Every structure is written in C-alpha cells, then in structure tokens.
C-alpha cells in the first residue's frame, strides 16, 4: 500500500521533510502504523507523539483509523489557537 504522508510546521522541521510517499506491506493498515513508521525510533519526533493531530484525506483521524492504498495521511502540531 502506498500512503502519502504530510507534515507541517515544527513537525515538518523536526522530521526534515514536508511530504513523503511511503510503502507498507502490512494489511490492514492504520494511521498508527504510519505514525510508527515516521516517528518510531527518531528521538526528535518523540515529543510530538502525545500532542500531534492526525488526518486521513483531509478529515481528522485517530490512530485506529483504517487506511486504503493511495490515502493521504497528515501529521501536524496543534494549530496556533485562540490567544489573539
């Protein structure tokens, strides 16, 4: 399965890229599997695991959201928010 993975803002900087197409053998595949593949053993991404938001094809998703071939998964920090 090919999944397009996107990252934004500080997460993209920590990851070192904004987008990648990744191939997975696992089936069924979930958002958590993609997250694991990206963040797995990278300490610079570890701090994001608890706070990042996830989406599948432009809709908010959870770790257990199932994926299909060609899906777009995005990982991003909480948005800038409401202080202003």
């Amino acid at each position, binding site marked *: 399965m090919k999944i397009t993975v*996107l990252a*934004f*803002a*500080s997460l993209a*900087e920590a990851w070192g890229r904004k987008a990648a197409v990744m191939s997975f053998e696992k089936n069924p595949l979930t958002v958590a599997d993609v997250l694991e593949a990206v963040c797995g053993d990278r300490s610079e991404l570890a701090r994001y695991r608890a*706070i990042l*938001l996830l*989406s599948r094809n*432009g*809709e908010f998703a959870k770790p257990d959201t199932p994926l299909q071939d060609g899906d777009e998964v*995005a990982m*991003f*920090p*909480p*948005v*800038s*928010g*409401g*202080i*202003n």
Partner: protein
Amino acid sequence: MVALVNERIDREALVCCLRQDSDGAIVTFDGVTRNHSRGKAVLYLVYEAYESMALKQMYELRDQARQRWPITDMALIHRLGRLEIGESSVFVAVTSPHRRAAFEACQFGIDTLKRDVPIWKKEFYADGEAWIEGQE
C-alpha cells in the same frame, strides 16, 4: 467567499462583494500581525497551512454558521506566506439583515477558525524564530 491567499487581503473589495441590498449589518474581524508576542519583538511572520484540509474546514465552518444564524453570507480569508507587522493575516466578514446574528456568527467564525483549521504561524525575532502552536 472562502480563500487562502498569498497577497494582501483587500477588506473593502471583500465587503463590497459580499453585501446585498437586504443586508443591514456587516460585522468584520480583522486579525493583524503584532509587533510583540510573549514579550519579544517580532520582525515578521510566516503562515503555513495544510491547504486542502484548511479550505475544506473553512467551507464547513461557513456552512455551519449559515445554519445556526439567520445571516446572508460569511467570508473567511486567511493569508499565507510572509507577512509584515501590521498586515492582516485573517479576515472574517458576516453580512446579515440584523446585527446580533452578524456579531455572533463573526465571533464563532474566528474562534472556530483559530481553534480548528490547520494553519500555523512562525514568528521571526532578531535572535531566532519560533512556531506558535497549541496556544489555545
């Protein structure tokens, strides 16, 4: 009108486009980049969005507002890329026959946009830069 733009937001043109002769009230919110943030002098800012998702959510937000309040229309515009101090980063305009609905819908629009729509701000200082994230 719902849009992500790279150029200056033209408030006047937006309000003129939006308004119809049955509207009696136009409420606008203009979010402007400030020269200070958390005690540091800001030189300029960069906004980044997950554009396709942000646009989808902004359209949904506008539709929700139209369902909840008897308004005529809502414009939601966010600028991306580099902004200088004093420039508008976001503009929300609501037209309505009556003003109470326009105020409520406009506040709902900017509150929801800031909380939910995937757009991030990076501030640049004399001595560094920082993403402003999760500041609800």
